[in-house]
């Protein structure tokens, strides 16, 4: 077995036993990036020098014993998570040369645990997109078939984990941006409960929906990552004062009890969604039967307001984005256009040259929806619909523990297939947006392949702060659904 094939858990165990070192593993992954990332283009920045130095330090800690889980593990970060002294671009020209002066809380936590920060990953600009085609720099490709997109917006994160360029990655999920690329690249993507993981140092897109989470090679690694990044943070006022459990115990729960006592809900409204690929539908059916075979009870549930989710999201998110992105004005950081001597004109030129088309579209929609006379009709109404969507889930969770759904209506589409039609791209987010709107956790677990060998995942969602049920059921799915070669040949 090659070093790059080791899961986070396996690598961590071997390091603790002294059978491999962090420097060896980091070196092996850096070599693999050097050899294959030309094809995939997952990384915006590969931080070789710092990574090797961090690996040396981790090896010292490991040698002393008592190193925490994850010590010495090479992790890559979506390029909107601030890293002190390392460029953080958000996939945008406006932040092309931005070097944060502080670490995001998740980065501090990873550093404290002794993790190795191997590099920063490509993404749709400011996390707006479902294909990575909105990166201002280059296109990341799906490692299973490079003619296809990796999904988005954390497409670089999912592609890097699938390509075995890092042991695990962090992404962010505002409307499916961890789960959808996870599904498209055949890796596990977990969006924690809103408030579970600190957002301090995450460049904001839509603050009431954004959440950082892990993208990993398997469910157990996701649990280990959760142990490393969760917890209350006084620097984020929306961070929850809730104790984090040891997430790996959810897997032991599965090993002892299977899924006995767990009830899985299938929302009947999701069968009315148009354009579901037959391979996605059959993978979903298989997953349903597997969960049943493992001892879960599967019931029919209703989410009556599901049909409004996309419309409500594409008001709320752009409204918040239009406010959040106002800060990029060429004064304090980022790009400044110097062609004008007039302040207002400087703002206008800077933003128009710095932001890509999709970001500008969303700023325009958000500004319009929040402008005088339209607030009640758009933002007000969308926020009330959001309340109804949360109510749907509250009712559903009275009769079930976990909701099962597809992640995306189709496997990864081809590059360029949807670029001229933002609305079609928005509609493909139908299954993932709800978890953000309701603030609940969701996981995407690989469950099968399409007829043309592209990965297909299924999604599980649970009550707020019940990631344990997701990990338990997800682990069951992963162990039971044989997927053949677990990673693509590059």
């Amino acid at each position, binding site marked *: 077995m090659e070093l790059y094939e080791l899961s986070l858990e396996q690598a961590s165990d071997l390091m603790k036993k002294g059978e491999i070192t962090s420097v060896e593993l980091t070196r092996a992954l850096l070599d693999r990036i050097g050899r294959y990332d030309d094809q995939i283009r997952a990384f915006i920045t590969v931080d070789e020098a710092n990574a090797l130095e961090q690996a040396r330090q981790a090896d010292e800690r490991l040698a002393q014993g008592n190193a925490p889980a994850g010590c010495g593990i090479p992790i890559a970060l979506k390029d909107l998570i601030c890293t002190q002294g390392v460029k953080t671009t958000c996939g945008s020209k406006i932040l092309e040369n931005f070097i944060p002066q502080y670490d995001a809380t998740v980065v501090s936590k990873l550093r404290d645990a002794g993790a190795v920060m191997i590099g920063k990953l490509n993404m749709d600009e400011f996390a707006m997109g479902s294909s990575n085609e909105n990166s201002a720099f280059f296109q990341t490709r799906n490692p299973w078939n490079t003619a296809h997109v990796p999904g988005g917006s954390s497409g670089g994160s999912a592609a890097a984990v699938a390509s075995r360029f890092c042991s695990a990655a962090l992404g962010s999920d505002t409307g499916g941006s961890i789960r959808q690329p996870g599904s498209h690249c055949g890796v596990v993507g977990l969006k924690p409960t809103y408030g579970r993981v600190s957002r301090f140092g995450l460049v904001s897109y839509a603050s009431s929906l954004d959440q950082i989470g892990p993208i990993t090679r398997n469910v157990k690694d996701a649990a280990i990552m959760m142990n490393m990044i969760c917890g209350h943070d006084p620097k984020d006022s929306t961070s929850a004062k809730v104790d984090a459990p040891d997430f790996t115990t959810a897997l032991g729960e599965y090993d002892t009890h299977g899924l006995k006592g767990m009830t899985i809900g299938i929302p009947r409204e999701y069968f009315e969604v148009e354009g579901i690929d037959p391979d996605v539908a059959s993978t979903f059916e298989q997953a349903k039967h597997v969960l049943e075979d493992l001892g879960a009870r599967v019931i029919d549930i209703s989410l009556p307001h599901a049909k409004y989710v996309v419309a409500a999201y594409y008001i709320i998110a752009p409204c918040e984005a239009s406010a959040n992105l106002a800060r990029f004005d*060429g004064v304090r950081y980022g790009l400044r256009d110097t062609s004008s001597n007039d302040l207002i004109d400087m703002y206008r030129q800077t933003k128009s040259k710095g932001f890509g088309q999709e970001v500008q579209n969303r700023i325009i929609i958000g500004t319009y929806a929040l402008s005088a006379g339209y607030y009640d009709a758009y933002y007000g109404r969308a926020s009330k619909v959001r309340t109804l969507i949360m109510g749907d889930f509250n009712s559903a969770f009275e009769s079930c523990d976990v909701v099962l759904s597809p992640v995306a209506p189709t496997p990864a589409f081809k590059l360029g297939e949807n670029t001229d039609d933002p609305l079609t791209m928005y509609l493909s987010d139908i299954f993932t947006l709800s978890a953000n709107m309701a603030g609940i956790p969701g996981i995407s677990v690989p469950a099968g392949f399409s007829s043309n060998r592209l990965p297909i995942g299924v999604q599980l969602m649970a009550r707020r702060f019940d990631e344990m049920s997701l990990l338990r059921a997800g682990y069951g799915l992963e162990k039971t659904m044989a997927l053949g070669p677990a990673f693509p040949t590059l």
Partner: protein
Amino acid sequence: MKITTDDVEKIAHLARLEVDDTRKEKMAEQISRILQYIDTLKEADVEGVNLLSDAAFQTNVMREDETGTPCGPDITLANAPERDEDFYVVPNVVK
């Protein structure tokens, strides 16, 4: 809701964006399609429904009013496109 190229120009000004003429039409068309789709929200019955501004918490978050250590001008201004000692420099505001 259909928006025109004039609307795009007006909103772009509010958002401090400069949209050139070649893109205005495409933007108006794309955004109109999106807003037409968003009009499905009008069918939802929201009579008497509370407005949620936050998915998680309805309570205000307070902290102790304690003095911290400020990071100082060198860190604060480290990414300034243009600075003069401890100040950001911007184009003339008063002509």
